[in-house]
């Protein structure tokens, strides 16, 4: 038990070192070197993460889960989604549709809402 606890502490310590080493030094990180892809404005990115977290919670995600989920996003992803979360496609097969039109499009073979129908 104690060994397990120790091991966990070690892992956490290792993670902290891993993250803190480059920030101590004025190292240039890989994302910065990737051509023009990252805005080096941490203040605004942190604020944007908070905003995304609020949106997730407002969307019914548990607050603790939302915190973990936002941390899992990269800066580039945060920049991509910020202020557009409700315009992004969210795969989920929402069937709020104009039924008649879609029945016709199904028959025409332009859409495929009902899989394997009509027989292809």
């Amino acid at each position, binding site marked *: 038990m104690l060994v397990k606890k120790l091991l966990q502490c070690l892992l956490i310590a290792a993670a902290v070192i891993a993250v803190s080493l480059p920030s101590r030094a004025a*190292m240039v990180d890989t994302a910065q070197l990737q051509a023009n892809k990252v805005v080096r404005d941490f203040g605004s990115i942190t604020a944007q993460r908070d905003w995304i977290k609020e949106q997730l919670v407002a969307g019914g995600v548990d607050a603790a889960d939302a915190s973990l989920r936002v941390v899992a*996003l990269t800066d580039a992803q945060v920049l991509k989604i910020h202020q557009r979360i409700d315009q992004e496609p969210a795969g*989920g097969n929402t*069937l709020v549709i104009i039924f008649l039109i879609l029945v016709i499009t199904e028959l025409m073979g332009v859409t495929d809402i009902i899989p394997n129908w009509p027989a292809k």
Partner: protein
Amino acid sequence: MNFVIKRAGLVAAGALFFLGYLGGCATSPQTRLLVDNPPNIPAQVELIEVPFFPQLEYHCGPSSLASVINYRGTPVEPDQIAQMIYVPGLKGSLQIEVEAATRQFDMLPVQLDGKLESLLRELAAGNPIFVLQNLGLDSIPVWHYEVVVGYDLTERVIILRSGVDARVLRSFALFEKTWQRADHWALVVVSVDTVPATASADAYLDAVIGMEQVGRIDTANHAYSTALRRWPQNLLAHTGLGNSAYALGEFVAAESAYRSALMIDPQKAELWNNLAYVLAQLGQHESSMDAIGRALELDPDNRNFKDSYNELANWQ
């Protein structure tokens, strides 16, 4: 009654006209290309080992992701993934969260180039593909995540795990349309020792840099080595290998990676800057100052390099 039927007829006629305008004239150029110049791959592929998780309502994201992650040998249930990507208010999952969740399993979400032929090539190489589809129309979107598990070039069909159906067939032409309406979005999920068959260096490294950025340094380090086996002359991959090794405290490996990168591009000031730090860590003060000197020679006004110079000059 009659009036209602008439009205329905009118609506239908209107809808047909509208569709002719919208999508009826849409062609499937990629399908035609494939049929005219069939690529040099087997005529049929079906990855029957890809597991299937029938989706709960609106949970096509979690089910599809569970499918590709389990295929790579990491057991996970759709419920666990739902906790990482599902947004009840949206009745769905966002693409960026799908990528983020994939990283949590130490697997790389690598974007494909949007070509139908690339999907087939990936399948031929044994890689199922996680795709976003718009099964409806641009104006009436029906977003849906699915897993492409096979194709048949003679029958011209794509085989999918989709929703509550373990095996859906969709013609190339229709698949091309529904995929195009979702911006041809497609991911191959791989563990860090594999590069997807059709991935560009940029797309692969994008995924690896994401891994590095969220602090999964060891995984990223491994993936940079994998990238260098495929693209030995890639500057960004050498740099990433150096940076991740540095972050792990593996300074000898970091030095060697930066030096390899500098052989490719000796004018890259950032690399001299980072090399200076690794040399300082190795206790080689003089070489470290030489290296930061080179960075400043190349870019004398760079504030970051000036800070580095001051920090390295007083290195303890």
